């Protein structure tokens, strides 16, 4: 690449010596004007530096620029490129036009005299990709991994012929290019701190489908973007420009979603969406942003293997279900009278469920073994002997898409009373969703909160205003809970991790730091009616937990407790209800037992507005003496 840069530099000097168009006063004005245009800045990923205010490109590679000053100076970069783009009689693949086709194409409107130079490599590459439409791919969050709520996004390059398999389309990804020798902690740290370079890559879409649909059991939403052919062409040109270059990669802001938007920005003057994400880019918000600016056409749903297993097993009779599980235990049962007495349609149903179930066991339960491999081949082989097709109803799409759920941030105002004193809570949460939030568009039983702060003003004595005090009530650094309901076939583990600062609701309790970890089971209480509909009675769960607390208010400054939590949760579109209680005796440190009961009721007022009532009671028992505290509150949650 160094050589290439040098050869461009040499050309540049030659072009300076020739009496070329570029250095009249008029053309220098033109260059001044163009270099200040937004599209030029998009094409080179210039962004105004947040603190110092100067322009800087987010691309970190020398070969993304011609001018030595290119990374920080849009004007000198353009000044260096214009004469090179104008050069004629260039060798195939050697001209700057072939290196930066999107810049060339866009600039040509100002320089209509420029002559296209041959770029056979670029043409062959574009023919192979054959992109006519762009589709933004958003893998939805998936059961038992709330972390996936943050998601990922990529862009699929679709062919003109709609009947062509989408699996064979290419897809554009932007990801951190990590060092495989780094361990996981380094990985996390470097990812957050920007220690890895971000690179644009292209993979066949089937590779991503295998990963999302079949390994991670993650539904995928496909948003077709309504760009013109020219814009799509510019997008592909621009992807070419990023080859062998590196961008900054930060998980919170300059991540996959942000960069994809920036790549879209570069492909059309109509598009300017990346700017909305100066602080952090949530993949779901990037989709909302594109929908809001009318860039999204049709939306398609690609169900995961987990959803398919779940919906298809509901179409079996109880006898078929039991048989399907038994067959996985003992494949020879397919030669038994019970199986053979079924119609071939029913046999095919049982076999397909058995196969999906076995695959689930291997993929999700780590039961990969030579024996299971033999079993799956035997079952697949048996299925191949039955010619009946379409033995299940088509998969039903979720009524509400992920992007139609409540927005990412939440502000809360609540009025309440604790131990007889009135209080007002002001809360702010950066992200994302907890079990009592409005559930539409979110995975049931999934919770992930980050950066949730609650300030509480307490009025000790209601007769005078003097006794008003303000305190930090709670700060959730991270709060994850995953309640994956277990059914006949799928048996996820429920788990919880939470860390931050909190208080007891006892009189005079100080802030303590805590880390809670728990695991357990959850079961769906919905009941299938005779008419094939089902009634939702929520889900119950039980977790075994350990909690570590640290604060000067404790003897030895800490307490480690271990116990259990049980609860019931109902997540209706209109009403949300939760009741849970926990009991945690001390294990180490300060010797007190902790018990609580919490009841919550929420109701939807609007897509982004919820009213909520909460009541809780806590008991702390130390050396046989109990003290307790209670609190009730009425609050409004606004999502924005």
């Amino acid at each position: 690449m160094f050589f290439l840069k040098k050869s461009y530099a040499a050309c540049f000097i030659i072009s300076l010596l020739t009496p070329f168009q570029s250095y009249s006063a008029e053309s220098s004005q033109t260059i001044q004007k163009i270099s200040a245009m937004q599209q030029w800045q998009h094409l080179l990923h210039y962004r105004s530096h947040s603190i110092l205010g100067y322009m800087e490109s987010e691309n970190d590679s020398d070969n993304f620029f011609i001018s030595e000053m290119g990374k920080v100076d849009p004007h000198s970069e353009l000044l260096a490129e214009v004469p090179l783009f104008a050069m004629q009689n260039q060798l195939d693949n050697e001209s700057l036009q072939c290196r930066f086709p999107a810049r060339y194409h866009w600039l040509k409107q100002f320089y209509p005299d420029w002559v296209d130079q041959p770029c056979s490599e670029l043409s062959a590459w574009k023919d192979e990709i054959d992109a006519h439409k762009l589709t933004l791919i958003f893998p939805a969050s998936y059961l038992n991994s709330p972390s996936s709520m943050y998601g990922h996004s990529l862009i699929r390059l679709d062919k003109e012929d709609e009947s062509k398999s989408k699996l064979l389309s290419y897809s554009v990804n932007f990801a951190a290019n990590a060092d495989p020798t780094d361990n996981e902690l380094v990985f996390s740290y470097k990812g957050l701190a920007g220690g890895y370079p971000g690179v644009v890559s292209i993979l066949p879409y089937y590779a991503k489908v295998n990963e999302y649909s079949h390994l991670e059991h993650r539904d995928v939403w496909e948003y077709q973007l309504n760009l013109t052919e020219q814009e799509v062409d510019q997008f592909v040109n621009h992807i070419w420009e990023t080859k062998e270059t590196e961008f900054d990669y930060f998980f919170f802001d300059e991540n996959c979603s942000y960069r994809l938007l920036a790549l879209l920005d570069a492909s059309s003057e109509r598009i300017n969406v990346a700017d909305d994400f100066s602080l952090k880019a949530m993949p779901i918000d990037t989709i909302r942003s594109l929908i809001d600016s009318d860039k999204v056409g049709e939306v398609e749903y690609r169900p995961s293997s987990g959803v398919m297993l779940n919906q298809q097993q509901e179409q079996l009779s109880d006898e078929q279900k039991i048989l399907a599980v038994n067959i996985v235990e003992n494949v020879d049962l397919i030669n038994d009278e019970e199986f053979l007495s079924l119609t071939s349609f029913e046999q095919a149903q049982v076999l397909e469920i058995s196969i999906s179930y076995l695959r689930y066991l291997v993929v999700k339960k780590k039961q990969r073994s030579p024996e299971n491999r033999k079993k799956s081949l035997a079952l697949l082989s048996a299925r191949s002997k039955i010619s009946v097709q379409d033995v299940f109803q088509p998969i039903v799409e979720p009524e509400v898409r992920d992007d139609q759920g409540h927005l990412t941030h939440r502000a809360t105002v609540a009025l309440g009373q604790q131990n007889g004193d009135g209080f007002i809570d002001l809360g702010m949460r950066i992200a994302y969703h907890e079990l009592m939030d409005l559930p539409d568009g979110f995975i049931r039983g999934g919770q992930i909160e980050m950066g949730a702060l609650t300030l509480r003003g307490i009025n000790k004595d209601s007769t005078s205003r003097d006794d008003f005090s303000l305190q930090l009530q709670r700060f959730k650094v991270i709060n994850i809970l995953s309640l994956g309901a277990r059914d006949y076939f799928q048996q996820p583990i429920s788990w919880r991790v939470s860390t931050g600062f909190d208080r007891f609701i006892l009189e005079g309790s100080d802030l303590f730091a805590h880390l809670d970890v728990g695991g357990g089971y959850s079961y769906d209480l919905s009941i299938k009616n005779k008419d094939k509909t089902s009634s939702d009675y929520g889900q119950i769960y039980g977790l075994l937990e350990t909690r570590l607390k640290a604060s000067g208010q404790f003897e030895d400054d800490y307490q480690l407790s271990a116990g259990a939590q049980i609860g019931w949760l109902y997540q209706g579109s209109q009403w949300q209800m939760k009741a849970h209680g926990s009991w945690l005796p001390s294990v180490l440190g300060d010797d007190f037992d902790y018990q609580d009961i919490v009841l919550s009721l929420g109701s939807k007022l609007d897509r982004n507005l919820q009213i909520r009532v909460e009541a809780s009671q806590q008991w702390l028992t130390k050396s046989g003496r109990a003290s307790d505290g209670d609190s009730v509150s009425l609050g409004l949650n606004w999502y924005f």
Partner: protein
Amino acid sequence: MKKIIAGAILAASSTMAFAASPAGCGLGTAVVFKDANEWHEHVLAATTNGTSGNQTFGMTSGTLGCEAANGPLAGVQTFMDNNMDQLAMDVSKGQGETLDALAQIIGVQQSDTSAFNAAMQANFDSMFSAEATSATAYEGMQEAMQTSVELQKYLG
């Protein structure tokens, strides 16, 4: 937690879209359903905003093109190699998106797809035997096509 492996980065090549994976074509991916991350592996990911989506970047860097295979079926084996699990499921049912995609890479015309699907399903056992890899599956598929009047022509 899976690591990101640098791979399939845009690379200019005169004939191919991208650099082919060094693993080449059909080096024997077997039908064994792959396993996924466990719950605890997601905890770290949760703090890093979507890394779980990124981590598999480049893991399956197969391209549609395949330099080792020549002739009209070039690329077919790579596709099979990267889609063995799903392909086995589709072939057993005689239908499915992955089977459709395979037919398209081979160039099977719309009018012959049902013959293709039926031929694949009927020959499941020879494509996916106990020792099946993508290489033997590929051979089994070719043999199945050879015996079909409608499908012979696609073998070139």
